[in-house]
């Protein structure tokens, strides 16, 4: 059996090193092509008329004037009269014309009558006694439970009690299975009572989404030495990908579609377009060279991806480009659900946590959404939680980098930090004392906590709350913990070695800017003992073997595992041909430095080119797969821990918070490329500072529209806002042997909690909600003064 295992540190040439991103040169020179840059011959430009109302019925649509305009090539009604619109900015009519100005004019010439309906865009605490509807459940709600790691037996009883809105399709069941539903849960879904009438009647805005109790919280609270109560929250933010969502679609004949689409999920797109377009998935080709950001919002073709193809069909198959405008991108193409909670926590005098109670709420738009996994990381022995999902008209939620975890971190770590303050304990000591509640990650967290303290200079910097102010500036430090899965997804690839020594690797994956291309090449080159630039890598097309969507930090584990297996098999095929020439058994050969040589005898070798020429005329192609039970060992793994610390300076006159330093200590098993791994962490810290201080999707209660759907008032952190950043990756013994684990999500989880805790430490009072804007800081300071 060939040895597929990752080579150990002495036998690695590239894996674990600091390697420069292979696609950086094309990116810095403007040569990298993104979907938005694709220019197809005869391409038409599409524009979309959108609903100005958050909740309305379409009464009538008159496109006659637009149809007569010169240059207009196709008009497609997306949601016709009678349709109910659930958020402002939703698509009504799409137009394709010879150029953008003409398409814009045509959209202006279309007349749509709406009948406005009452809307709700607030996610404020549900009023006492508000109608709390229980079940029936949607598939989304069940998926949320999986996300939140609701125990299987509890899921089964909830499904049996509440029933389902509609019968689950095979596709639904497969998806839930992939997301971790057990057989018992799947069986409960199959045999659940159906309540189709529930989807027809207007649902209540408030839905009881979760309620669970562990242990005996009442008793534990009664017996505790210290109890802390507080309110915490994190608002809806948007993904704000710099490349907006969209695609260019064309029909190469009546039954074949070619689409360039900005997606995190190249291989998964045809399967999602086939049914709505009524063609087999095999007839859909998807291509993408580069993507300008996704962060969880680009897994599906979306309705606009489907109607771009429909518009193209109406325009005789000509290529049609529809990329979302910036305002639409912010309004409809991505929102991270909000989460707020009233939390009560209790501990003994020495800091040992004994009880947790939370009543939480939040919105994921029309679907409501689920409860974040709280209490997070720390399994407090006695718990009671209830969660109310608010269904409203702010637009649909999407997975946002580490779905539900940044919310859980804020709700949990801020509440625990307040309890530590109440006990007059240094948070490092307090959290350290409770690390046994983190179970299998305890050892990792302990190591990380001590490294992070060192790198932050925590001992010198930490003072009890509110005791580090001079004049009108106050300084403080805070910390947070996080966890994530990150097991590698399903991935196939083909590696071909040609008799002339050239090598190519094809995989239907995508590089989100995380360094996927670089890491694939590092693994293949390390295994074959040839330079990375001797391998031609092709990704981003459905004509290559399918590889999973890039979400949930699953890419790196998937693509490196399949690449390793393909590379080992292809290498061994070359060994088999070379062995007779060198007069050894093929298992006595190794690939190093562009040579195939006899192990331990550097005088007996063939150059890579000579070795490959032994293949005679036929190239060898090997298919690598992940997972692959027949080719052990498992090369990927699940479960990481991270600790982050923040230092802030608060101007107590203006309320302005400045982050002065951030430290991230992170493990992710075997690191392939240290350089791009650190960049992932830097980027996550920066994104974290951005959502902690600035970002919020602000809705107007009167019009139901987003008020800051631009990049001036939806503020992202700029260069000016970024402090000293220190990243430390846990590598070596205890980490490398675990295999490759994803890194995209984990480091973005903790910044909100760490920064909020640092602000509380600085000013001596909790600013309950993110973002920590000057007005909120001043309000908290005033309340403290008044108290």
């Amino acid at each position, binding site marked *: 059996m060939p040895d597929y295992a990752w080579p150990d540190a002495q036998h690695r040439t590239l894996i674990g090193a600091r390697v420069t991103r292979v696609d950086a040169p094309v990116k810095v020179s403007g040569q990298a092509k993104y979907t938005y840059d694709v220019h197809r011959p005869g391409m038409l430009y599409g524009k979309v008329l959108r609903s100005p109302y958050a909740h309305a019925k379409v009464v009538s649509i008159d496109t006659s004037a637009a149809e007569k305009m010169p240059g207009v090539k196709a008009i497609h009604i997306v949601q016709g009269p009678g349709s109910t619109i659930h958020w402002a900015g939703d698509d009504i009519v799409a137009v394709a014309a010879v150029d953008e100005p003409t398409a814009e004019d045509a959209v202006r010439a279309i007349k749509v009558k709406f009948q406005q309906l009452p809307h709700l865009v607030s996610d404020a605490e549900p009023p006492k006694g508000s109608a709390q509807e229980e079940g029936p459940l949607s598939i989304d709600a069940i998926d949320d439970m999986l996300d939140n790691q609701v125990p299987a037996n509890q899921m089964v009883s909830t499904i049996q009690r509440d029933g389902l809105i509609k019968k689950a399709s095979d596709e639904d069941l497969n998806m839930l299975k992939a997301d971790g539903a057990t057989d018992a849960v799947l069986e409960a879904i199959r045999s659940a009572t159906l309540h189709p009438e529930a989807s027809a009647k207007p649902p209540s805005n408030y839905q009881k989404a979760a309620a669970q109790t562990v242990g005996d919280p009442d008793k534990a609270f009664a017996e505790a030495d210290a109890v802390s109560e507080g309110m915490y929250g994190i608002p809806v933010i948007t993904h704000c990908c710099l490349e907006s969502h969209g695609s260019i679609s064309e029909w190469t004949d009546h039954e074949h579609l070619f689409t360039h689409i900005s997606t995190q999920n190249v291989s998964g797109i045809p399967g999602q377009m086939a049914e709505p377009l009524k063609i087999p998935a095999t007839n859909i080709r998807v291509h993408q060279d580069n993507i300008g950001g996704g962060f969880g919002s680009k897994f599906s073709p979306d309705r606009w991806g489907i109607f771009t193809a429909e518009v193209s069909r109406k325009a005789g198959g000509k290529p049609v480009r529809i990329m979302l405008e910036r305002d639409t991108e912010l309004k409809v193409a991505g929102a991270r659900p909000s989460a707020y909670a009233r939390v009560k926590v209790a501990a003994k005098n020495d800091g040992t946590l004994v009880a947790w109670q939370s009543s939480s709420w939040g919105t994921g738009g029309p679907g409501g959404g689920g409860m974040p996994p709280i209490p997070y990381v720390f399994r407090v022995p006695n718990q009671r939680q209830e969660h109310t999902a608010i269904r409203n008209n702010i637009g649909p939620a999407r997975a946002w980098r580490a779905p539900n975890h940044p919310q859980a971190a804020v709700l949990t770590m801020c509440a625990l930090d307040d309890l530590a303050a109440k006990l007059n304990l240094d948070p490092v000591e307090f959290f350290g004392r409770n690390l046994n509640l983190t179970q299998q990650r305890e050892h990792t967290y302990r190591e990380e906590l001590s490294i992070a303290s060192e790198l932050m200079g925590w001992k010198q910097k930490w003072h009890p709350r509110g005791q580090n102010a001079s004049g009108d500036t106050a300084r403080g430090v805070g910390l947070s913990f996080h966890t994530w899965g990150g097991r590698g997804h399903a991935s196939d690839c083909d590696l071909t070695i040609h008799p002339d020594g050239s090598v190519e690797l094809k995989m239907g994956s995508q590089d989100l800017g995380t360094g996927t291309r670089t890491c694939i090449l590092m693994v293949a080159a390390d295994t074959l003992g040839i330079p990375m630039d001797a391998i031609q890598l092709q990704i981003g097309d459905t004509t290559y073997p399918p590889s999973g969507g890039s979400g949930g930090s699953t890419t790196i584990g998937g693509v490196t595992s399949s690449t390793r297996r393909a590379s080992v098999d292809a290498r061994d095929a070359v060994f088999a041909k070379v062995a007779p020439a060198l007069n050894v058994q093929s298992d006595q050969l190794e690939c190093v430095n562009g040579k195939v040589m006899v192990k331990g005898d550097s005088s007996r070798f063939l150059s890579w080119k000579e070795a490959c020429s032994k293949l005679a005329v036929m190239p060898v192609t090997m298919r690598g797969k992940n997972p692959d039970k027949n080719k052990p060992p498992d090369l990927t793994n699940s479960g990481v821990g991270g600790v982050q610390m923040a230092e802030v300076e608060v101007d107590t006159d203006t309320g302005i918070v400045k982050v002065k330093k951030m430290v991230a200590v992170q493990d992710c098993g075997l690191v392939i490329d240290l350089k791009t791994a650190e960049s992932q962490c830097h980027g996550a810290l920066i994104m974290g500072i951005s959502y902690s201080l600035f970002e919020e999707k602000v809705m107007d209660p009167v019009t139901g529209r987003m008020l800051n759907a631009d990049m001036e008032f939806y503020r992202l952190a*700029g260069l000016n806002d970024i402090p000293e950043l220190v990243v430390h990756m846990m590598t070596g013994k205890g980490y490398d042997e675990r295999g490759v684990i994803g890194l995209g999500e984990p480091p973005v989880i903790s910044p909100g909690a760490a920064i909020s805790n640092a602000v509380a430490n600085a000013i001596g009072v909790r600013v309950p909600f993110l973002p920590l804007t000057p007005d909120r800081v001043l309000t908290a300071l005033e309340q403290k003064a008044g108290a």
Partner: protein
Amino acid sequence: MRDDDENLKDANHSSESPGVSRRDFLKISGISVAVPLVAGPKMVMAAGQQVPVYGPGKVPMEFAINGKNHKADLEPRVTLLDALRDQFELTGAKRVCDRAECGACTVLMDNKPVYACSVLAIEAQHRPITTVESLIEGGNLHPVQRAFVENDASQCGFCTPGFVVSCKAFLDSHPHPTPEDIRRGLSGNLCRCGTYEGIRKAIAQVAQKGA
């Protein structure tokens, strides 16, 4: 747009110029099929002067981009950014906010950085335009680009061309920037992936070595 029309209209009235005002002309042409594909300028009286009014409809334009002459027939409302991207296939500059908020579309005009999304193509005629594509010389990356590569200053890379052009212009005018200069000088560009750490290091590296 609307304000300009308003002013123009007032100007027309006060000078009592005969004929069709621009506003009326727009109204007619918006629905008329008979507009010539390429229209020459129409002269109108504005603030007591004869001024040419271009469009609606396409007008011939000429540009000096990356040292080369480019021609196209474009509507006067087309931005420099859209002209570069859709007419000349220079797609390095990106369209992100399309309203001077993010810097992804940065190019040099008269050697100064501008947001190409907020310059009308018609106004950029005959003025030297430099885009990111021209920074490579003889197949070699510009020192700023090399520093971006070495310091991993791009992730998805969508903001990168804009940043590269801004950084080049910044370093040309501030060869020895202080950290404060860097913070201020590059606050006109935004990155969603969070590459600022690499960008900061790249600038420091170039400033030290000299571009």
